């Protein structure tokens, strides 16, 4: 299926790996030019090379989403190079498994700053451009199924992802009059470098190997397999397309049924 994003420009944060890379490639496959933003310039460059092979433009931007000035500069650079931003995917995120009584203040701050404040800073900068341009736009945030329900060992992560879901709704109210839709996607357990780290943490806690932790996770899934970045990217591409122009303020699960498991 082609969502026909030809001529559109997308900005994707955390585009260097995992879900972000999946989103970049899917949007590019559907015709969009893509600005790949990541704190890791090397992986962002790899994604950009993959995008270029699909016959669209790619721009690499080094970006720490917690720094307001860097965000402003990144947005200006993208508009300068690619002409505009039609689609903003706020996808950069981190995770850590730790109980609240053991959680360091710096880890709380890192989660709230990258996962939540980063969405605010990027949305603010890009929304101003979209409003000034007067042609609407799409803001699509990567929340999580843990933005809707809780999990032990992830209080800080849940707090940050619940925050994204709330921010999505408020922002949708504010930007609706400008034809800008704001939605979130809520992935489940996606086979990415971030989950590889989580399986390692789980394995340590359970005294098993990371491979065993991953396999246990797979076996619990209703659909019998782990989620792929492409599963998330398909929903993002749909939300970015004209087909989704009347969808706003939603936080949609693409989680293979999580929290329900076998």
């Amino acid at each position: 299926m082609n969502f026909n994003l030809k001529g559109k420009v997308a900005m994707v944060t955390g585009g260097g790996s995992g879900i972000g890379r999946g989103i970049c490639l899917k949007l590019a496959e559907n015709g969009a030019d893509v600005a790949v933003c990541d704190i890791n310039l090397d992986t962002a460059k790899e994604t950009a090379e993959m995008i270029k092979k699909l016959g669209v433009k790619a721009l690499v931007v080094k970006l720490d989403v917690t720094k307001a000035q860097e965000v402003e500069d990144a947005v200006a650079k993208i508009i300068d190079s690619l002409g505009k931003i039609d689609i903003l995917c706020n996808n950069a995120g981190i995770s850590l498994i730790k109980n609240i009584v053991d959680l360091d203040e710096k880890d709380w701050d890192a989660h709230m700053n990258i996962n939540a404040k980063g969405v605010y800073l990027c949305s603010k900068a890009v929304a101003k451009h979209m409003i000034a341009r007067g042609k609407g736009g799409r803001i699509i945030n990567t929340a999580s199924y843990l933005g809707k329900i809780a999990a032990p060992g992830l209080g800080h992560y849940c707090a940050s992802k619940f925050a994204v879901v709330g921010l999505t709704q408020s922002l949708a109210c504010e930007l609706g009059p400008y034809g800008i839709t704001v939605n979130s996607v809520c992935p489940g357990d996606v086979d990415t470098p971030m989950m590889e780290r989580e399986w390692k943490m789980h394995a340590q806690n359970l005294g098993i190997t990371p491979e065993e932790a991953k396999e246990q996770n797979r076996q619990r899934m209703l659909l019998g397999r782990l989620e792929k970045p492409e599963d998330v990217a398909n929903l993002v591409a749909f939300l970015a397309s004209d087909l989704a122009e009347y969808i706003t303020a939603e936080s949609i699960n693409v989680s293979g049924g999580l929290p329900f498991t076998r």
Partner: protein
Amino acid sequence: MMRFKDKVALVTGGATGIGRAICLKLAGEGANVAVADLDLERAKQVAEEIKKLGRQAIAIHVDVTKKDQVQKMVDTVVEKFGKIDYCYNNAGVSTMNPVVDMTEEEWDFNMDVNAKGIFLCCQAEAKVLIKQGFGKIINTASMGGKHGIPFLAHYCASKYAVIGFTKSLALELAKYKINVNCFCPGLVKTEMQDREVVWEAKLRGMTPEEVRDEYIRMTPLGRLETPEDVANIAAFLASEEADFMTGQAINITGGIETN
């Protein structure tokens, strides 16, 4: 009723508004109360009101965004009363602005007090409750933690965070039989609301009175919420009747929020 005889409650943001109402409600039913607030003078006034009800009270100065001050607050309560039965993490702030005009300072202010403050307080409190083997944590969220509201994106983000955090912590502490819940007030007549109607009036080109009238029209039960309405559910969550409730975010909004 004396549901809380000889119980000890800690209430942050206890000097005014919802926090003050919680302090007085619990004291009225027998509890001794530690009134913690950034504004020590007004916390002392509430402590005096509590003492007039025949209970013990202390006023504690605390900035809930400072880990060392939070730890000191919890230590002080344990030192004075020997235990904590109910931890009300209620301190909160708000500002109003559309996201495109919101300053980074506003974002940080709302997230730090409303969300991080709850984390820091709960962490310090949980260690005490686990050690003593009993206790309840009751956080003040908001209907802004259940649906988005224009001009309050940062506030909603912070209150959604409170709900997600509360639910996770409930799962972590369940094995110690420690209950963790929050409640979600609506449009409560407090000093915070007095400030908000002025901001909202300015942002929407209305008068504060018109904004307040709209609040009343928005409320199915047809009046502004009082701090006492909130204190009633806050006290219920502390009571034995709520022993089997944990991980909940309960609306107390006069019907505005039904989800």
